[in-house]
């Protein structure tokens, strides 16, 4: 990717203190996001993908959450060191978010136009009337029919797909540099999902908005992303350009995941592969590869030490965290 890096996350650690011990939800994550790039973060529930993104905007509730280490560099500024006020000015203006459930993330007692206009008023200093006009314009842009009339409706008067469109209108109203979409279509039906993904794709291409797309659906990743990070137990186990990830996965977990999904065009095998066992408990993880108990290619070293990140290609920053691919093992 020749474009400049717009967001750099370095060694991010986010932990939660619980009654049973310390949960390292995110355990040393690093990645770069470039202008105009769509980065996919995939993983199963509890792999830390949402917490990563909440940490970027410092939205992790504390206590019990705590960002213990790392840097989040946005245009050279470390957001983790910035004051609350500085971060607040970035939220919604430079970096905005779309959440999974559009009903609980909208305010039920405010008209939708007011909710879209709020960020515009705040960040552009526009008055109420021009902000509302801009909100209506956004609603038209994202394809809400009869936008002028519907601007005065409340969230419950919209369908799930329409609500998610309103969330997108809110998120894009200030032309952000980065859009973080956390499972934006998981609550929607497939035909509506197709509409929403198409919308995110075309709008982000238009303004060269960088997108971080968090999802558990590898199909969505294949169609939307340029680069993909696969997360497992709070770590990025593999990072690759989208084609390389799908056609030449390096980590046994990535391979297992890809072989586990049934395909609608019946191109898959007669019997699905399944990864045995379940993801580990994140409390007091031992110093070992967290995937080792489920891995089909487990070796002795895997249960004794955490595999380091091995960069396989510096140009595409392709990397994998697996003892099978470390320098020593490659040469051996």
């Amino acid at each position, binding site marked *: 990717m020749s474009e400049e890096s717009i967001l750099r996350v370095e060694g991010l650690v986010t932990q939660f203190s619980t009654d049973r011990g310390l949960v390292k939800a995110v355990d040393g994550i690093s990645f770069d996001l470039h202008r105009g790039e769509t980065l996919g973060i995939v993983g*199963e529930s509890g792999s830390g993908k949402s917490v990563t993104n909440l940490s970027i905007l410092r939205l992790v509730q504390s206590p019990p959450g705590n960002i213990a280490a790392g840097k989040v560099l946005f245009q050279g500024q470390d957001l983790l060191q910035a004051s609350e006020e500085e971060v607040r000015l970035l939220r919604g203006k430079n970096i905005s978010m779309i959440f999974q459930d559009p009903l609980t993330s909208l305010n039920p007692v405010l008209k939708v136009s007011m909710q879209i206009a709020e960020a515009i008023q705040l960040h552009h200093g526009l008055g109420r009337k021009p902000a509302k006009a801009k909100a209506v314009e956004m609603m038209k842009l994202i394809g809400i029919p009869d936008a002028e009339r519907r601007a005065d409706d409340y969230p419950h008067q919209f369908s799930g797909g329409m609500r998610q469109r309103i969330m997108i209108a809110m998120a894009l109203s200030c032309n952000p540099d980065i859009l973080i979409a956390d499972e934006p279509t998981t609550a929607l039906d497939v035909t509506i999902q*197709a509409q929403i993904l198409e919308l995110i794709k075309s709008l982000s291409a238009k303004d060269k908005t960088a997108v971080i797309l968090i999802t558990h*659906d590898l199909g969505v990743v*294949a169609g939307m992303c340029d680069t993909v990070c696969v997360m497992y137990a709070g770590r990025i186990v593999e990072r690759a350009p989208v084609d390389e990830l799908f056609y030449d996965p390096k980590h046994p977990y990535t391979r297992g995941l890809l072989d586990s999904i*049934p395909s609608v065009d019946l191109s898959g095998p007669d019997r*699905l592969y*399944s990864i045995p066992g379940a993801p580990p408990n994140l409390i007091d993880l031992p110093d070992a590869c967290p995937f080792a108990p489920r891995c089909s290619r487990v070796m002795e070293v895997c249960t004794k030490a955490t595999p380091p990140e091995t960069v396989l290609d510096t140009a595409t920053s392709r990397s994998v965290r697996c003892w099978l691919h470390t320098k020593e093992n490659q040469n051996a």
Partner: protein
Amino acid sequence: MPDSQNLLDVRGLKVHFPIEKGIIFKRVAGWVRAVDGVDFSIKKGEALGLVGESGCGKSTTAMAVAQLQTATAGQVFLEGRDLASLSAKDLRAARKDFQLVFQDPYSSLDPRQKAQDIIAEPLRIFAKNGLITMDEAAIQRESLSLMDRCGLSASFATRYPHEFSGGQRQRIGIARALALGPKLIIADEPVSALDVSIQSQILNLLKDLQKDFDLTFLFIAHDLAVIEYFCTRIAVMYLGRIVEITDAATMARNPLHPYTKALLSAVPLPDPRKERSRRRIILKGDVPSPSIEYKGCPFRERCPQAMEKCALSPPSLMQAEEGHQVSCFLYGGA
């Protein structure tokens, strides 16, 4: 009359829910036509998949088949017996033959019962009512063997549901459904709450059990890929009606109804090259409300191929080719 080859025959099934208005003097202001005339049959050993978007009536169909929801009209025949005509006592006995697996493995298990007791409960109830002869020791043995068959170690027998992961809980739900040796399993979104790696474990388990126990499935899901993997035949529902029904391979390669085509093209493929090259049919608008009575085809307003006559009368399910029925004027019908 139902065909003797079929385990299940559903004829003209309708489930309408009243919309009530008023506080003291309630009056019916309209009807939600959740299921509006559904016909299908399932042969022994077959797995029929019912697919559609939320609100299309697939779960209500399942509940009506399982006699957990009273049908407004139509009949459900299990091995030729009309289930709705049975007395409460006979229906209870007949429930041995059809059991359910639910979507949410969290809310469908009693949090105060141990895993083994959850699985043994159907056996205990049937033994108590004299419908099966089994003593407590046999029930214990049977429930342990079911746990083992569903991939749960015997050491889990005394654990409570909250101590299990989602996939393990779904295994408990499946073991419970198998306890009485049913012929038909009605599985309502059995894997949609699970992660990909766990989903494939459960799908494989269900496939193995189908073979070993000679089971017939009515499998409900919104995920077409899951349905196509698991089922031998597929019925696509839209607004309370079946719009297309055929075998899985034909549905994947040669879908006929414009809605099925759009649905298939909307499913993201886990293959970046195919994703870039395929043409997606993006449907306009949302699924309309099932409380409106449609004069013509209910899919008309979103259909990219709508014609004049689609507005006049609703199409009925017709044979388009051998073993392939579709409800669309593009393929004939007046």
